[in-house]
């Protein structure tokens, strides 16, 4: 096969691959799901107990991120269907957002929508009330000092519940990109947006240089 034809094959392969890669990236980034606004980074390593109907668990020293419209609570899987749950975000003794889920859930996490959407980052207590219709098993991390931040009806639970804060509606990665980019600058000497632009430029430059080098010499 002559050299120009081989170089042509390289260029065509690079072009097709680039299109496929771009399509793959666009597909992945367009997937829609409830995106996180924050989390308390408590790990699920222990069973913390069971919430009976009418009991309320409150966890102090939570930070509710701006834009939160739902809370995902880690629970023990309920094989026969978990009980109804009501969740409230309490600031200074008053509820600033709340929501509920009816009984019958079975998974190890329960997402409860909150309204209104939390307008700005705020320190708060998160309270979960079992409203009947089944048990609510609690999962989280046992506290080293045996107390923790969570308490049931004023009695220390001995650990912390894992809580994940979510956007109110499912979003693509494109829509969530701003928040992710903002977090990339944590502790970094460069601005978040500068880092994101740099990463994009460096990656594209590396791929373009590689493609150019493949195409410029005779295979």
């Amino acid at each position, binding site marked *: 096969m002559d050299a120009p034809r081989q170089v042509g094959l390289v260029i065509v392969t690079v072009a097709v691959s680039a299109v496929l*890669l771009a399509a793959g990236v666009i597909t992945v*980034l367009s997937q829609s799901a409830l995106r996180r606004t924050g989390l308390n980074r408590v790990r699920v390593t222990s069973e913390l107990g069971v919430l009976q109907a009418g009991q309320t668990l409150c966890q102090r020293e939570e930070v509710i991120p701006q834009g939160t419209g739902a809370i995902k609570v880690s629970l023990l899987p309920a094989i026969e269907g978990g009980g109804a749950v009501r969740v409230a975000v309490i600031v200074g003794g008053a509820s600033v957002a709340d929501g509920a889920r009816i009984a019958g859930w079975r998974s190890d996490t329960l997402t409860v929508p909150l309204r209104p959407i939390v307008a700005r980052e705020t320190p708060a207590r998160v309270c979960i009330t079992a409203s009947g219709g089944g048990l609510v098993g609690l999962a989280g991390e046992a506290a080293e000092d045996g107390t923790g931040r969570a308490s049931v009806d004023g009695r220390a639970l001995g650990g912390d519940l894992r809580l994940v804060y979510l956007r109110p509606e499912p979003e693509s990665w494109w829509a969530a990109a701003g928040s992710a980019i903002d*977090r*990339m600058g*944590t502790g*970094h000497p460069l601005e978040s947006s500068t880092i994101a632009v740099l990463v994009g430029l460096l990656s594209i430059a590396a*791929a373009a240089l590689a493609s150019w*080098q493949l195409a410029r010499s005779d295979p």
Partner: protein
Amino acid sequence: MTSSAARSRSRGVPLDRLRHALGGLRACAARVPRAGRVCALVAILNAIAWSLVTPPLQISDEPWHYEYVEYVARHGRPPAPTPPRLSPSMQAVTEDLDLGRVVGSPENGTIWSDAERQKLTRDLAQIRSQDGNGGSYADVPEPPLYYLLEAIPFTVAKGASVLDRLALMRLLSALLGGVTVLGVFLFLREALPVHPWTWTVGSLGVAFLPLFAMMAGGLNPDNLLYATAAFLFLLFARIFRRGFTQQRAVAVGALLAVGVLTKMNFVGLVPGAVLGLVVAATREEGTLRLRTLRLPLLALAVAAVPAAAITLFNVVAWDRPAFGLGAYSTSVVHPSLSESLAYVWEFYLPPLPGMTHVTATTFSTREVWFEGFVGRFGWIDTTFADWVYSVAAIPAILVLLLCVRALVRARRTLRARLVELVVYAALAVGMMLLVAGASYNLFLQHGGDAAAARYLLPLLPLYGALLVLATRGAGRRWAPIVGTAIVMLAVAHNAFGLLLEVSRYYA
């Protein structure tokens, strides 16, 4: 002569030397083909992208490596093995970044809330004490060369915070990543000289390997180890192709010294290197006599001088163990031969029927080595979805098949170069045995292990050769397509690796 003329001349001498040295470097760089320089540049750019995406201290052992550099920069010597004590500034950073809850918990991103970030910024500005004891080197008192190099950016960034310094030190690792890829390119040029275009394929395949790029974007002595190993492979390829000269013997010795002063793992390459030296010398002389060993002994002497010096300093001045402890010491364990053989086998391969199963070892070839190679990032806690590894097996098998095809077609050449191949195999097996042996030792000491794919990255030149052979195995008609597809697949693999990091830590 007037005094002003003398002063002028005395100023001129160092300048002349500098110009001469720069000229030498330029001449050296000019001898490297442009393709090699481009591949190295690609590796550096990609490694910098990884260094920016990966949050601080989220690459295996990074806090401890930072502490070692800090200690070297402050005290001018490596730390003695003592119970680890982080400096107050690093302690504050690890707590503020909630490292204990992010490492090993892929469901937890790095810190996001304004309150946490403000606390980090405040502590970075206020807590500047560097009064640590050098990290957790009670377990593994690694040699100091990489840390001495990293002490340069650490010191240059005088007055900067822990994280600013870390960002700068990561850039030096990225440069070493470029040096590694350059070494791989030159090795491929020397070892597989027939189709120059394929050298680019092999080198770019390495440059875009996400595991390698992640390591090159982090603070870790493995980066100097990879570069040294790549150039050791290159030197042996050159010796077997162009002959064993005194200059090359000195170069091998110097590389062995650099490797031994960089990381204890390099010792795994030493038996293969010794075999290579003896075999090359015998081939050169046509027979094995005492005189034949002149060049191998020269190489080993060159390597031994700095190694002996550091050993002496360890014992006499630095209160450190002469050769190393922890993963490398057998003084506190009682290994059994049959169990150690079984362990080493099971470390890489599925157990054979009737083989003694070593209690508590649950290595899976697929999980540790294949999945690790495809991508287990950070503290080996950031993984792709399971199906990705299954899909990745398809191109991996195709590459292997094409490679086998190339080897079968080149069997006559292979026979002629059998001795050289044995040396490469010895280098690889030595490294694999060392990693398995160190892991067995950790297992005996406290049930731990050292099963991580990154420990085999000193063998990257062989991975590059595998990609070259796969391209050649496709035949002349298909080689341009297959070679390009290999590189583009690596580009895609790398891109999704970066996206995985973003989603794990920031989304």
